[in-house]
């Protein structure tokens, strides 16, 4: 299928606003939020640089939505501070609202309105008037591919179309930071791919995106880094790649060859930095005692030079889900709430 050539170039402008200056897009300092009987968020701190896409991961009730609602000025912290585009969410909520686009985990639409009326209402409510309002609506409809659905009642939209509409609404005022709470929840695979694609486009435009999801593999593909939260505490902040690799200083490689597996085993035994781990149907797993890409590449080159007919050679990574579970396990074992 063709990639859409739609973009938000005109609307989105530069990735970092002048008002934000050099301030991080999102900065959270020792943020806590408690409700009667519930400590939803406990002393969390993190920073998101402009243009980054950050995945916010955690089980239900971990504190993701509460944190996101505070960042969106819809709730207030019990202690600590949060800044979006350099503005304090408590003392300057209006400024924060101007630079964020918020997409909650629920639908948030009016069933008896058409797509066009819905976007028009929010464009008016955001203060757009006259031709500017028309242009904003047109750009958003074009970007989210809703033009053909403009006159359809929202009740008649599929979940995926509805999510695109919600994303369109969040983009109407061309925000610098997007806060998306479980945007892919309940979407079918096709709608999920479409949404992922739109988020990728927004990231290319330089938008900062904070996105929460249960589906870690999807976040891994989209995000520059992942923020794990558990029982109101941030337990890990790092890239998806580092998570997949884990803390290990070695790389596990899956190798497929033509010919005898014993040949691969013998070669590995004689080669420096390489250990043969186990045999598979048409090859085996070897461990290289480095994570440096250059070292891994040199091993592959040597293998070919030594006459092994390699048909597949790839780094075996942990699944993000496994990484998450492992981190939780480490926390339980250590008794400390933090993992470096």
């Amino acid at each position: 299928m063709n990639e859409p050539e739609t973009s938000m170039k005109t609307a989105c402008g530069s990735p970092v606003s002048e008002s934000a200056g050099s301030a991080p897009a999102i900065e959270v300092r020792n943020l806590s939020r408690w409700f009667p009987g519930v400590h939803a968020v406990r002393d969390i701190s993190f920073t998101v640089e402009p243009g980054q896409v950050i995945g916010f991961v955690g089980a239900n009730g971990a504190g993701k939505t509460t944190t996101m609602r505070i960042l969106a000025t819809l709730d207030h912290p019990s202690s600590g501070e949060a800044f979006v585009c350099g503005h304090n969410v408590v003392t300057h909520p209006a400024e924060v609202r101007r630079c964020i686009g918020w997409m909650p985990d629920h639908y948030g639409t009016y069933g008896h309105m058409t797509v066009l009326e819905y976007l028009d209402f929010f464009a008016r409510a955001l203060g757009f008037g006259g031709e500017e309002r028309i242009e904003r609506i047109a750009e958003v409809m074009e970007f989210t591919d809703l033009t053909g659905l403009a006159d359809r009642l929202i009740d008649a939209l599929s979940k995926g179309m509805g999510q695109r509409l919600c994303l369109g609404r969040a983009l109407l005022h061309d925000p610098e930071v997007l806060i998306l709470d479980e945007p892919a929840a309940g979407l079918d695979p096709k709608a999920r791919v479409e949404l992922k694609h739109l988020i990728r486009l927004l990231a290319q435009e330089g938008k900062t995106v904070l996105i929460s999801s249960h589906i870690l593999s999807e976040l891994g593909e989209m995000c520059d880094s992942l923020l794990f939260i558990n029982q109101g505490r941030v337990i890990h902040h790092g890239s998806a790649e580092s998570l997949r690799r884990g803390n290990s200083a070695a790389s596990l490689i899956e190798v497929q060859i033509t010919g005898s597996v014993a040949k691969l085993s013998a070669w590995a035994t004689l080669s420096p930095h390489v250990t043969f781990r186990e045999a598979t149907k048409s090859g085996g797993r070897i461990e290289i005692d480095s994570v440096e890409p250059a070292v891994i590449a040199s091993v592959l080159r040597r293998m070919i030079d030594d006459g092994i007919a390699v048909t597949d050679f790839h780094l075996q990574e942990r699944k993000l889900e496994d990484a998450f579970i492992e981190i939780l396990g480490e926390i339980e074992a250590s008794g400390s709430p933090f993992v470096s």
Partner: protein
Amino acid sequence: MISPPLTDARDALSVARRMKDFPSSFSPMLVKELRQGMRTHLFTVAFILLQSVMVLSLLAGLADPSSPAVDGFFWFFIVITLLIVQPLRGFNALSSEYLLNTMDLIQLTRLDSWRITVGKWSALNAQTLLFLTGVMPYLVMRYFLGNVDFITDLTGLLFLGLGSGLASAIAIGCSAFRQVVLRGVLLIAFGIGFVLLYVTIQTTLLRSGWGGSRLATMGLTAISLLYGSFFFLSFGASRIAPLSENHSTRKRLVALGFTALALGFLWFDIEWAVLTVVGLILSFACVDALTEPLPVYSKVLEPFRRHPLGRLGASFLAPGWLGGICFFLICFGIFTSFAWFVNRTSSSSPFPTGDPIAFATFLLSWANLFLFPLILIHLFFPRHASGSFTFGIYTFIQGCALLLTIMTATLAEALNRFDHLIFALVPIPSILLVAVENGGANDGYKLIYLATALLTLLIGIAVPLLRQRAAVSEFVRHLKRR
């Protein structure tokens, strides 16, 4: 892969251009509500039904122009449409935004809670205006058929329109509560009050010609309707508002402004009507102020911090029940002074005249009526003393107290014992009020009543302050912070 766009950029622009049916200067909420409201079956059905009934009544009028039944038929359906059907359409106005999960989304735009509420109310009134416009030709035709005073009819229609505005404001204000039962109870309670008020207006004003004081009473009625509409709209707005919005200061200043305006009608020699209206305005404002949550967003206090006079103003204008208590005391002072003045100058006083102790006990007991539920809330429901349930609990306690008062008074009447024994059994301010009104006690008991009333007032102020010391000191700290 994402599906290719069905249309190009020019198409999107031409599609978007269709959204020019309402000018950009219109309130976004009004536009949205009109688009949604006009599409509902209820509006269409009500409009067609009203038109049909108008045609029928006109035809019946042709047959017998002087029939009061035809006249009653004509007005009955207009009243039903304007005072019941239209306001009831606002029953879910604000709560539906929560139900649809759209309230958060709207609050992230430039619309504050006041604009959201007023937008919904304006949309309902715009549709009421359509109904009124639809009725106008029939009003004119009735005039030509004879036996109809056009000016009276027109005035009636005008007041129906104003009444519909107030009734809609009540429904929309109450719709801020998400609990259907509470919403329903409030709507019924306010609805009954509204009907009583409206019937009084209809019977005493519109049926009995024109005159200087009657015109003034109509002006006073208009003031009541306007304040009522404002009150219920701001009541709803402040209930849905995030903590960062301050609606309290405006609400309280407007109440004081309307009080001053109402006091201006003293020139027209209708002091009892003025006293009633002032009493109503201040009562509504005080109940609202006393049940506001205290945890105050520090940013809201910023304007008060800038100037020493601002800090003084914060003591009664800042959001929350703490400022509400001070506001209540000021209102009580205003009302007491005014009542004392009226009591001295008027010959037909409803107060216990000629007895300063009874007069003081009477006024203090009225004040205690407002504070009494607050004592119970802070003593027995401290967790709900400063939240969204406070108003509901307050109303519930007042309702129970009213019921208890009626039962006790009935019992006292049956036993023919309007004395301290009966009232000592039910120690609530309203019972004391009944005791003072009936004047059955001797001088010794009158002093005990006065002391009880005074003590209750002091307890009413002290209990919330002591029970919520932490919140109070936090509030004061925020106010003093530079």
